[in-house]
């Protein structure tokens, strides 16, 4: 039902530095070949203009901003492949 308590346990804990070159390569393999990487004040920004996605990356965090759930899930899985996790 609607009132059941939601699960708060994450499926995994990602760690380590993100290799941006590897990420861009994996995006291309997944058919997202238009990734543009720019420097910003806070780190790097990857823009996927065709899909209206922005990915902000710094040493400790990655932020995916999108308007498409299935694409977000695909991007999340690609990111997790590029990070260590337990």
């Amino acid at each position, binding site marked *: 039902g609607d009132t059941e308590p*939601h*699960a708060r346990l994450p499926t995994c804990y990602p*760690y380590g530095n993100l290799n941006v070159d590897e990420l861009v390569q994996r995006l291309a393999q997944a058919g997202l070949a238009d990734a543009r990487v720019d420097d910003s004040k806070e780190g790097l920004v990857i823009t996927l203009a065709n899909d209206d996605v922005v990915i902000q990356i710094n040493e*400790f*965090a*990655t932020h*995916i*901003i999108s*308007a498409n759930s299935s694409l977000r899930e695909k991007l999340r899985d690609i990111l997790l492949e590029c990070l260590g996790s337990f």
Partner: protein
Amino acid sequence: LIMKNNSMKILGVNEAWGELGIVSHQLRFTERIEVEHIGPVQALTSSLHTLLSQKLGTTQVQVVSEYQLSVADSVVINIQDDNDDPGKNILLSWTHQDEALGSKLLEIIKANFKK
């Protein structure tokens, strides 16, 4: 639970990072949901507050401002006025650790507000 120097201990996740000498990498997601809503942003914030309180329980949903709600002290919802009235954007933001709650909220909001 971590094993180190032949001893075992149980630590919170954040303490364990330090013990293991590795740096956690936070994943955050923000999903934009375009909605059609006539009237001021505050009215949309208020109707979203009512809906989510009904679905999750009133103690779970906090009003942060006229444009912002937070759920269970973790998921943040921002409401933006699109210049193109009656268009508005709901920005739902959560971390990977709160994936279950984040995707549940996304479903609820889409089912009730998506144009």
